């Protein structure tokens, strides 16, 4: 049934919609060409007929054979949908002048992929999926199914790498903008990760607070909810003015003011603790709020500075080629650690191999050391050239436009899913479990890290995935305030009605979202105890 639909879908596209558009130049509208309009040989007709076969195959009796047939056809449709129009396209380009009215400016004529290709890819994918479902029903091993499913994608990747598909204009764009794309992509990733990390710290803390304190509960949950409803553009705008002011400040004077503020807040907090019992109820509450706000100012200043600077440093570290060696060593150590921990759990090394217990965190220390070195190097690079007295906050990456407001806004947006899920995860733990832990002598910290966090972990991770995906999307908007990232391509594309540019920004973003989601899922299943994994 699914295969039937997929086949219909693909052949519908091939029959009614253009597969490619031939454009005389970057701006002019193109000449749509349908699959069956392409002159010459029968191959194109064959693709159309191929797309029709699943409609018949769907009625085949033998499930095993049907599965294999559908998988093969699905893969083939995907491959040919990209390959054949590319062939035709190159042919068109050779004689491009003849296609257009005289007087049309022809410069860099190009082939635009068109709707039917999307239909073909989607339809082929559905057919493949139907085939894989059949194979799963017949008990074909997972690995074999995975390979069967990946054939088409692998061939497409090979064609991309081999230049077979270079005729499409998006590939043309890619080749001319590849380097910028890589950088923007990296920026995008770092944006999301930095905001996610900051959001995690704040979000888990807030979620924890909300779950413990019935009075704060509503206030926290409403606040993060409201933040989510502010349009991202407005949030960028709101942050613009104060951050611009902040950026102008000299580092030393700010540091002095900050220390002063922090000292006052600390002194006020200590004094309040002393006076607490002696103050009347009203005054107590009032002063509590006052101290809270007083403490919030230096804390948030510090956070802004750390986050914005962190982003700049991270980007420097990731893009500076001299650091490549250190970078890869650190990365390898981290990967080694992850492998060690995950296999160690699985194989129960802790009991079987006493050395494992002692050495398992070594790679992590190595990675941490490497990361520290990298950060120091990056920070040095950013600040190294200027005199201390002349350093402004802008040198730390804080200004009205650019990364600082973008990351702050992104962090704020990530809060809702993180706070809500942390809160829900912690609240949903059976109180008897926590009580029995306490009764056995867990300290509050041990109870949190060894009982509550592991139990709430899957729920928190769902929030992290949620936040990560939406951050990938919102980060694209940050380009408007000059923060870079993949949004640059999309904005450019929108401004010049160039679908290729838009796609060039969108496809990596979508891929990033998908990969992050999958990666976080894997991480979640590795770190979630089998005792609480959903059966």
């Amino acid at each position, binding site marked *: 049934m699914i295969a039937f639909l997929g086949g219909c879908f693909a052949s519908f596209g091939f029959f009614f919609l253009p597969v490619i558009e031939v454009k005389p130049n970057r701006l002019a509208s193109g000449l749509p060409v349908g699959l069956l309009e392409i002159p010459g040989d029968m191959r194109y007709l064959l693709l159309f007929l191929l797309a029709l076969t699943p409609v018949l195959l769907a009625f085949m009796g033998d499930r095993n054979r049907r599965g294999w047939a559908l998988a093969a056809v699905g893969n083939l449709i995907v491959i040919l949908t990209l390959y054949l129009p590319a062939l035709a396209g190159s042919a068109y380009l050779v004689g491009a002048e003849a296609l257009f009215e005289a007087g049309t400016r022809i410069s860099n004529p190009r082939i635009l992929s068109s709707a039917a290709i999307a239909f073909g890819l989607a339809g082929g994918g559905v057919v493949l999926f139907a085939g894989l479902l059949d194979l799963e029903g017949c008990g074909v091993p997972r690995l074999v199914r995975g390979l069967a499913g990946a054939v088409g994608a692998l061939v497409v990747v090979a064609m991309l790498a081999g230049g077979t598909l270079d005729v499409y204009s998006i590939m043309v764009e890619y080749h001319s903008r590849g380097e910028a794309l890589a950088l923007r992509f990296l920026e995008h990733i770092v944006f999301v990760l930095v905001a996610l990390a900051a959001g995690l710290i704040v979000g888990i803390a807030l979620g924890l607070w909300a779950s413990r304190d019935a009075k704060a509960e509503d206030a926290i949950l409403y606040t993060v909810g409201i933040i989510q409803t502010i349009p991202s553009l407005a949030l960028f705008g709101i942050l613009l003015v104060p951050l611009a002011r902040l950026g102008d400040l000299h580092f030393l004077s700010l540091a002095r003011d900050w220390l002063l503020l922090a000292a006052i807040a600390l002194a006020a907090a200590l004094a309040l603790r002393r006076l607490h019992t002696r103050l009347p109820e009203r005054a107590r509450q009032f002063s509590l709020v006052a101290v809270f706000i007083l403490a919030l100012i230096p804390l948030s200043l510090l956070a802004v500075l750390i986050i914005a600077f962190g982003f700049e440093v991270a980007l420097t570290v990731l893009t500076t080629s001299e650091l490549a060696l250190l970078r890869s060593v650190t990365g390898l150590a981290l990967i080694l650690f992850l492998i060690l921990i995950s296999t160690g759990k699985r194989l*129960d090394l802790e*009991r079987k191999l006493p050395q494992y*217990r002692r050495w398992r965190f070594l790679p992590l220390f190595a990675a941490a050391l490497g990361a520290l070195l990298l950060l120091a190097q990056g920070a040095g690079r950013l600040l190294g050239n200027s005199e201390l007295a002349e350093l402004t906050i802008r040198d730390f990456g804080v200004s009205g436009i650019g990364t600082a407001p973008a990351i702050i806004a992104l962090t704020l947006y990530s809060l809702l899913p993180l706070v809500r899920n942390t809160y829900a995860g912690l609240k949903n733990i*059976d109180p*008897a*479990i926590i*009580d*029995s*832990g*306490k*009764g*056995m*002598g*867990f*300290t509050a910290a*041990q109870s949190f890290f060894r*009982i509550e966090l*592991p*139990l709430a972990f899957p729920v928190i991770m769902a929030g992290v995935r949620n936040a990560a995906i939406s951050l990938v999307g919102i980060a694209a908007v940050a380009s408007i305030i000059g923060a870079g990232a993949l949004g640059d391509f999309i904005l450019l594309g929108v401004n010049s009605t160039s679908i290729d540019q838009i796609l060039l920004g969108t496809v990596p973003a979508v891929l990033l979202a998908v990969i992050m989601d999958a990666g976080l899922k894997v991480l979640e299943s590795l770190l*979630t*105890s*089998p*005792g*609480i994994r959903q059966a």
Partner: protein
Amino acid sequence: MIEFKDVIKEYPNGFRAVDNLNLTVRDGEICVLIGPSGCGKTTALRMVNRLIDVTRGEILINGQPNDEFEPEVLRRQIGYAIQQIGLLPHMTIRDNVAIVPRLLDWDEERVRQRVDLLLDMVGIDPGIQGDKYPRQLSGGQQQRVGVARALGADPPIMLMDEPFGAVDPITRAILQEEFLQIQQEVGKTIIFVTHDIDEAIYMGDRIALLRAGRLVQYDTPDDLLALPRDDFVREFVGTDRSLKRLHLISVRDSMMNNVPCCDDDATLQEVTACLDRHHSDSAFVVDAGNGKLLGWVERPALVEYGSLSEAMHHAPAASIAVPEDATAREALSVLLSHSFDLTPVIDAEGVLTGGVSIQRLQDLVEEPGIHAAMQRERGR
């Protein structure tokens, strides 16, 4: 030893959940806290390991006030088991039992041995079940693990809040019996909360009956049943308290040794003489060789048939007799179902050792505290 000294607990809302509690739990004894729902049992229990703070008064553990310890240090020395069990679902059974030993920084080898020992003790196979997770175990198995975990670091004191409350009655009975066996071995000082009077009578060395935060009566099970202090206690222990007391007495303690009985090769005269001597119309018949119970004989049948071998009723011993280690209550049940005046008692080999009569049981429950008196006598 655990001592409550004038302990008062007032919750922040002003509610007094425990009111002036004085109670001493002796070493190696199970003290059962019982009372209607909301009477403050859980509150009293949780004050011992400082999960709840005492408002006034103090709780001494081996003579030392419990607020002189850091709460965590104190709790690691006191076993804690609750009705909801509260096994940590993300840890394996072994890791759950190992929690307190690990909190106390035992070395892994010692932890492993201890865990194996404990799981064996509560009837969980460490090899098969040890690496499973709590949700893969049945409710009864989880309760066992809960008990094993409370015994984790061999604490001298255990607090148990309705530990067998969440399982079906049959499993509960098994767990109770097994736990008493374990207690015979380990001899912990235990405070055990329940609202089931039968459980209290079966498990408790002493029972503390609470009502609205106050201690109403603190006595051995037998004394509580025999001498209820007031109507509240009488009502609480139930109108069948006589039956319950029978439950506390073993057949061995309540049987008469001198019962009418004759060998299977006895002559008519011998049998008649025996019946006359006991002023009875029936006698048990035992194997002349090994003394095993074979059946019984009645006077009218003897007269009719003229010989023992023809007159006697053969019956498998198990169907008419009660074993020595059964409770008096079981003996009563056999008496009622066979309409005997006297039910025979046999030992493990099936040898007749005595008999129990309705009259005898009646005497027992009428005499206040006789069981306790008997035990005291035997102890001397």
